[in-house]
C-alpha cells in the first residue's frame, strides 16, 4: 500500500499545483481573463449550475447517452465479434471488409446519418454505436481467434457443443481483450456524444460548451470542460477497476 499511497499524495500535490498555477495565471493577468477564467469563477459556475439544476440535467443527459451508446455497442460488438471470431468462414469473408471501414473516422458518417435520420436522438445514437463499436468488435474477434489450439482440442475431446465451447472456453479466454476493447469503446462513445450534441444542439455538455462560448461565458465553458474530463476520468477508472477485479484469476 506504501507506493500507491505515495503516488496518490503526489497526484494530489501535482494537481493542486496545476490548479494553483491556473489561479496565478488568471488572477495575475498573465493570460487574458477572456480566455482563461480564474478557478474560483469556474467553481462558482459549477455550484450555480448544479443548484439551479440545469447543469445536472445536461451532465446526466451526456452520461446517459454515453452509457446507452456504450452498452449497445458493447453488446453488438461482442455478439458480432464472437460470431466472426468463432466461425472461420465469417472471419475470412468479413474480417477484411471490417478492415476497410476501420480507418474511417467515426464522425465522418455524421453527415450521412443526418441525411438519413435528421437531427434526432436516433441519429446521435446510431452515430455513437457505429463509431464506438469497432474497438469492442475487433478486440472480441481478436480474443476469439487467438484461442490456444490446445484449448480447442480439449473442447473437441470433451465433445461439448459449439455453444458450450463459446460459453465455457472461448468467452473466458477472450475476456481480457473484450474488456480492453470495451474501455476504448467507452472513451469513443463519450467523444461522439459530445460531437453529436454540438452538431444537433440537443441537451448535453457538448451543446453547453458551444452555447457558453457563443455568449462568452468562459466560466460556464470551463465548467463544462471540467465536467467532461471528470466523466471520462470516472468512467475509465470504473472500467479499469472492473478489469482488475474480473481478471484477478489470471494473475
Amino acid at each position, binding site marked *: 500500500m506504501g507506493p500507491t499511497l505515495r*503516488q496518490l499524495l*503526489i*497526484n*494530489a*500535490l*501535482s*494537481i493542486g499545483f*496545476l490548479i494553483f498555477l491556473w489561479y496565478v495565471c488568471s488572477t495575475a493577468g498573465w493570460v487574458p481573463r*477572456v*480566455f482563461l477564467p480564474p478557478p474560483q469563477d469556474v467553481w462558482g459556475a459549477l455550484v450555480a449550475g448544479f443548484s439551479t439544476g440545469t447543469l445536472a440535467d445536461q451532465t446526466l443527459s451526456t452520461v446517459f447517452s454515453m452509457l446507452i451508446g456504450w452498452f449497445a455497442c458493447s453488446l453488438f460488438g461482442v455478439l458480432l465479434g464472437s460470431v466472426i471470431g468463432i466461425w472461420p*468462414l465469417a472471419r*475470412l*469473408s*468479413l*474480417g*477484411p*471488409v471490417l478492415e*476497410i*471501414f476501420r*480507418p*474511417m*473516422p*467515426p*464522425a*465522418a*458518417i*455524421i*453527415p*450521412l446519418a*443526418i*441525411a*438519413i435520420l435528421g437531427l434526432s436522438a436516433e441519429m446521435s445514437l446510431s452515430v455513437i454505436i457505429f463509431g464506438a463499436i469497432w474497438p469492442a468488435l475487433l478486440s472480441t474477434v481478436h480474443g476469439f481467434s487467438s484461442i490456444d489450439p490446445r484449448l480447442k482440442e480439449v473442447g473437441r475431446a470433451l465433445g461439448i457443443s459449439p455453444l458450450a465451447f463459446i460459453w465455457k472456453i472461448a468467452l473466458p479466454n477472450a475476456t481480457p481483450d473484450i474488456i480492453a476493447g470495451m474501455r476504448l469503446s467507452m*472513451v469513443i462513445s*463519450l*467523444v461522439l456524444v*459530445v*460531437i453529436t450534441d*454540438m*452538431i444537433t444542439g440537443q441537451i448535453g*455538455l*457538448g451543446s453547453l*460548451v*458551444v452555447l*457558453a*462560448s*457563443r455568449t*462568452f461565458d*468562459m466560466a460556464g*465553458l470551463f465548467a*463544462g*470542460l471540467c465536467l*467532461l*474530463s*471528470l*466523466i*471520462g*476520468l470516472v*468512467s*475509465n477508472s470504473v472500467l479499469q477497476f472492473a478489469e482488475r477485479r474480473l481478471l484477478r484469476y489470471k494473475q
Partner: protein
Amino acid sequence: MTTGFNYRPWVVVAVLIGAWQWALGGHAVVSDTLVAPGPVLHATIRMLIDGSALKAGGQTLLATLVGLALGGGIGTIVGIASGMARPLASAIRGPVEVIRPLPAIALVPLMTIIFGLGLKMEVYVVSFAVIWPSIILSQHAVQNVEHELIEVADILEFGYVARTWKIILPAIWPRLVVMLRFTAAIALLIAVTVELVSNPWGLGHEMMVASWGLEPAKMLAYLVVVTAIGWGLNWVLLLVERMITAGPGAAER
C-alpha cells in the same frame, strides 16, 4: 485453400454494393438524401479530376500532419524525459490523468474564441488530442527498455543527451513508429471532426455543406475520400513500420 486467393471479402463487398444499388437504383427506396453507388463513383471521379477533392483533402491533411507533428513531438519529448526520470513520471501522472479524458472536440469553442477559425485552431485541437497518448506510449516505451542497455549507458557514464541519443532512441524507435500510426488515426479523426463541427474548410466541411445542400452523391464521395486518406495514412505508416522492423540494421538491433 488457405494459401489460395481469399475471394470471400470481395464477394461480401460485391453483395453489399449490389444491395445498395438495388435499393437505391430506383427499385426499393426513393430518397432525396441517398443515392446509388454509380453516382457516388461518378462524383468521386469528377471531384478528383476538377481538384476539389484534392484541395479539401490537402487542407485536412495539412492540419492533421501539423497537429500530429506538434502534439506528437511535444508528447514524445515529455514522454521520453519522464520515462527516464521516475520522479518526473510520477509528478506529471496526476495532471495527465485528469486532463487526458477531456474529449479534444470539446475544446473547439474555446480554441475558436482564442485563435479564431482556421488552420491554427484546428492544429491546436488536433495536437491536444495527440499529445496525451504520445506522452503515455513513449513513456511506457522508455520504461520498457531492457535493463542491460541502461546498465551499458551507466557503465559508459553517458550523460542525458548521449544516453537518449545513443541508447534510448534506437531502442524505442520501432515502438515510436507504432505509436505514430496510432496517433495519426486520432489526428485525422479529430481534424475531420473539427471541420464537421465548425471549421469552414477541408473534407469535413465539404461533407457538411453537401449534406445540408442535399447533394448525397457529393457527400458520399467525400466520405470515400476521407476513408481513402485514413486508409492511405495507415498504409504508409505500416510500410514504414515494416521497413524498420525488417529492413537493414534490424539484425544489429
